[in-house]
């Protein structure tokens, strides 16, 4: 049964409208970034002269090289460790019949909806006592902990669906638990682990609250945290602020466009499981 032509055009029209609304802020940001620094361009107007050097200027004056290094360091600290320990825990809780399985799952589920604001105050004092304030560790360590409820639930949901025949066959062949995990289950779990990696990368890059509370120096923060500091610095220089924002957006956008298919799938599944 085919839909009537009128309905199809209505569908196209709505889709077009939503896409335009979504894109307009990006376009405004881009156009404004090309205006003369220090001016206050009104709305969406093309500049008389295109100031492409604004991007260079923003990069240099915000010390963006350092910010980029800091963000990458934080990503490297968070994502691999979080992946490894949540895969281990997810395997044990999802596939093996460990004692207290149900209790442990409930403990992790409890943290699933926890707002970061709910623990940020004591976390500040805790990180201060450890001597990590104003270092990348202040973001890395708590973030790994905060990702655990989602990551462990994600991996254990995945391992629950792995066929038991597989495990039985490996056991018959004499595999111990470690071999079963490392040789059989991990290689078969690559898609689930990759999706989780994408989500964790994104959430780390965009993490803001931890960055502004625990790290004063913008060059030691995540990119989102650094962007927050920009606004105070350049609140009056709109073109430079826009150029800086675009520079910070670009890496995520590139990663998104490259891994688009996995991204959309991961985010939708992440929404469903979260």
């Amino acid at each position, binding site marked *: 049964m085919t839909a009537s032509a009128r309905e199809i055009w209505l569908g196209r029209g709505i889709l077009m409208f939503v896409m335009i609304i979504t894109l307009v802020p990006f376009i405004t940001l881009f156009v404004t970034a090309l205006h003369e620094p220090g001016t206050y361009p009104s709305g969406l107007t093309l500049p008389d002269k295109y100031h492409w050097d604004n991007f260079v200027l923003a990069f240099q004056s915000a010390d963006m090289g350092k910010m980029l290094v800091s963000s990458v360091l934080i990503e490297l600290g968070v994502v691999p460790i979080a992946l490894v320990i949540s895969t281990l825990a997810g395997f044990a809780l999802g596939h093996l019949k460990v004692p207290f399985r149900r209790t442990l799952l409930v403990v992790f589920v409890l943290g699933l909806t926890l707002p970061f604001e709910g623990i940020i105050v004591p976390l500040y004092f805790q990180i201060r006592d450890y001597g990590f304030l104003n270092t990348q560790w202040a973001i890395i360590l708590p973030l790994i*902990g905060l990702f655990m409820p989602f990551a462990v639930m994600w991996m254990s949901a995945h391992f629950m669906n792995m066929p038991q025949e597989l495990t039985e066959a490996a056991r018959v062949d004499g595999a111990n638990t470690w071999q079963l995990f490392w040789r059989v289950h991990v290689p078969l779990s690559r898609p689930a682990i990759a999706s989780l990696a994408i989500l964790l990368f994104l959430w780390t890059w*965009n993490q803001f609250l931890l960055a502004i509370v625990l790290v004063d120096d913008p060059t030691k923060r995540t990119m989102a945290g650094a962007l927050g500091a920009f606004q105070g610095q350049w609140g009056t220089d709109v073109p430079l602020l826009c150029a800086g924002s675009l520079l910070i957006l670009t890496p995520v956008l590139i990663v998104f466009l490259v891994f688009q298919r996995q991204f959309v799938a991961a985010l*939708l599944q992440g929404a469903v499981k979260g």
Partner: protein
Amino acid sequence: MTRTTRSDAVAGPDLSHPEPRAGLPGLVLVVPALLFYGVFVLRPLAATVQYSFYDWDGIGVAAWVGVENYIRLLTDPELINPILNAFQLILYFSIIPVIFGVVAAAIIRRLGQSKMAFASRTVLFLPQVIPLVAAGIMWTWLMATDGLINQILNGLGLDFLSRAWLGDFDTALPAVGVIGAWVNVGLCMLLMLAGMTKIDPALYEAARLDGAGSIREFFSVTLPAIRPELGIAVIITVISALRSFDIIYISTQGGPGNSTLVPGLEIYYLAFFEREIGQASALAVALTILVLAVVLPLNRLSRMGSGS
């Protein structure tokens, strides 16, 4: 690996998990995750509850005040106001995107696998991918006195409507809400679409044979079938409203006055600027409970009748 028969006996015949072998040694695999979670989430969570019963400036000696911080939470308008604001934001962060998402998805579903449907997936996910801070910066600029929105209004001859949207007491909260709606609408729409593609086309044909029009078809076939996705979209977006922080920190800092102050921002101000650690913690506990209180019933509702 030791094969404990005891754990089998304790766990009983769990048919969904017939893997009977790893006992306590398997538990070792959970330890690293539990350690990080315990030290950096559960411990501060317990400390938040503890702090909430004290009067403390973060430096001197803390004084036990019992439930006083909670009483102030319920009686001081300055502390109730942020919670009420968060509830108002639900309209913009959740209800509007979800309704719009459902209706738009129902219409788009008919487009099938066209190029445009594919392109829309990429475009509509952009707001979900970028930092919320960036969304805040973009929209602050759009809604500024000289921004695009006023430019359009002036162009349409509606000059009397133009204003500093984020700086006006009457419009600041809805304006912040619009930013949240912009972020959430694409996700809602795609979630609904994902739900709708799972519907058996035979159901639609049956409905058509019974003489159902588009509207009746929507209410009797589509809506019941996407109930799980609908529940998920509502839960995620309601949480995003209650714990909103980034967008508001960037666009209004809670102002003008306290008209866009939300619990997350108030916790931040109380703890790190006014040095009222106890009061901030009480609000943090309240926010955590509030999120749970909203999510748990919604979660149950969305699972009911979904057939699983």
